[in-house]
């Protein structure tokens, strides 16, 4: 029985994979043929082959060449990671303080709600004024976008603690700090990670937006430059690089999540 079910699971995985490949192949071939038959100009819609050439060209440049993707990606990644770390650290810390201290919650929550309703990318020009055209404004934008999903999810995690567990810690006369560190914090981790998974996507988004508005390096910068010279194939190639980057970042988060909240069966379902 068990053997049959694992086999059928394997078979269904293979089937899903094969369907995916077939779908992608159909799309690419259809795209290539459509561009040729309909005589669409390259600057409107490049052929997949054109995109491929642009991608290979961009990736073949040396990491020190501003014309290549590596040079630009390094800057984008750096800002994304710094922004993510700062934004998530702040988000978790503020959420913990809000959950632990009622007055902090009352003090801060109106601003959180207010900020939530603001399209936060609209702050980007302000950050350029404050932090200039270097990496600082990108980090600030990235951190700002990371902060909110991490804060709100963590807050939910820190607030939902089981009465039995609280009584267990209380019966040992545990201090507030001990109760937080031994019980509330680990118990909240599934929620924190749900926030971090969103946060990593938002931090990349924040960096790119900041690069659009005003920066000297980064994938956002090269995309604007390619757009100016109507190198649409190059734009597509840059988008593929960004998608791959996002995928890698999300995969790293999933790996960390599986490592730290291995005990929580509910998480993987909750954020699926």
């Amino acid at each position, binding site marked *: 029985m068990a053997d049959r079910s694992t086999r059928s699971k394997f078979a269904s995985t293979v089937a899903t994979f094969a369907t995916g490949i077939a779908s992608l192949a159909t799309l690419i071939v259809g795209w290539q043929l459509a561009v040729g038959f309909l005589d669409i100009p390259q600057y409107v819609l490049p052929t997949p082959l054109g995109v491929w050439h642009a991608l290979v060209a961009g990736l073949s440049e040396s990491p020190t060449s501003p014309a290549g993707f590596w040079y630009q990606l390094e800057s984008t990644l750096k800002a994304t990671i710094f922004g993510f770390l700062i934004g998530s650290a702040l988000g978790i810390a503020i959420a913990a303080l809000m959950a632990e201290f009622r007055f902090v919650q009352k003090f801060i929550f109106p601003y959180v709600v207010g900020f939530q309703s603001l399209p936060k990318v609209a702050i980007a020009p302000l950050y350029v004024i404050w932090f200039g055209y270097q990496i600082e404004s990108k980090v600030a934008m990235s951190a700002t976008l990371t902060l909110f999903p991490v804060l709100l999810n963590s807050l939910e995690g820190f607030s939902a603690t*089981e009465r*039995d*567990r609280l*009584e*267990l*810690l*209380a*019966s*040992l*006369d*545990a201090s507030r700090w*001990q109760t937080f560190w*031994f*019980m509330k914090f*680990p*118990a909240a*981790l599934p929620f924190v990670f749900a926030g971090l998974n969103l946060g990593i996507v938002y931090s990349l988004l924040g960096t790119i937006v900041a690069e659009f508005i005003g920066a000297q390096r980064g994938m956002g910068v090269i995309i604007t430059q390619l757009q100016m010279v109507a190198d649409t194939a190059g734009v597509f190639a840059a988008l593929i690089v960004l998608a791959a980057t996002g995928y890698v970042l999300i995969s790293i988060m999933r790996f960390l999540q599986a490592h730290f*909240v291995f*005990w*929580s*069966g509910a998480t993987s379902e909750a954020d699926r």
Partner: protein
Amino acid sequence: MSVAGLRKPYPGNLAVVGAGPCAVSGQRSVLLSATRVEKVYGKGGPDSVRALDEVNVTLSDGEFVSVVGPSGCGKSTLMKLIAGLYPPSGGTINYRGQDVKKPQRGMGIVFQTPVLLPWLTILENVLLPIRVLKSDKAAATERGMKLLEMVGLAGFQNKYPSALSGGMQQRAAIVRSLIHDPSLLLMDEPFGALDALTRERMTVELQRIWLMNKKTVFFITHSILESVFLSDRVIVMSARPGRIIKEFEIPFARPRDFRLTTEAEFGAYVAEIRQLLGTTNDG
């Protein structure tokens, strides 16, 4: 009104203590006394609920005392007040000559569910009180391993709780409650969530653990049979408001065998308590 030491195991002649303050049993010294303890939920308006009404309990050193009563008779509330988790609305609780104002370090609690933390291994769970109390970890680890072996969990110390059955988890929880060598063990329907067979085995197991450690145990249950089997003394409570209606001294020699439960003398206790509760409790 001391009747301790009275050992007349015959029906109709049961050693009975009324609802008044109970004196010290035998030569044992008093470990804990609760005097005229009340608990009212709500702010005294028409919606407030009187969970406990003038309850007097005395626990002597090394004594095994059970509380039986219907659901909602306030027995869990009583335990939580004794544990110092919540303040009583009236009356005093005295532990080793001191007023209980907050949880005492000399107490261990077993809840109805194991309450093991799923991100810690069994051994880490067992050592949680040691971490909180900042006691000697090396000595506690050794003790924890011995206790785990004693409850039949040797080899499971590095497993996570999810890998253990409900009964095994509850045994780990019992080990956790013993790890810091408490003088008083408070157990709130610890076997409530277990199936009948596991429950029977755990009852015998608990007696064995108690005989080896001789802690004072305050045991909450709704199983009359369990209470009579395990206890030196059974306190019977009624519901709404929660009151003590009677206390029974249980004289049977230890260790008690589960076959005892089928004997007439044993059955007489069970029957009388059941009649007091006016229920067809499953025992």
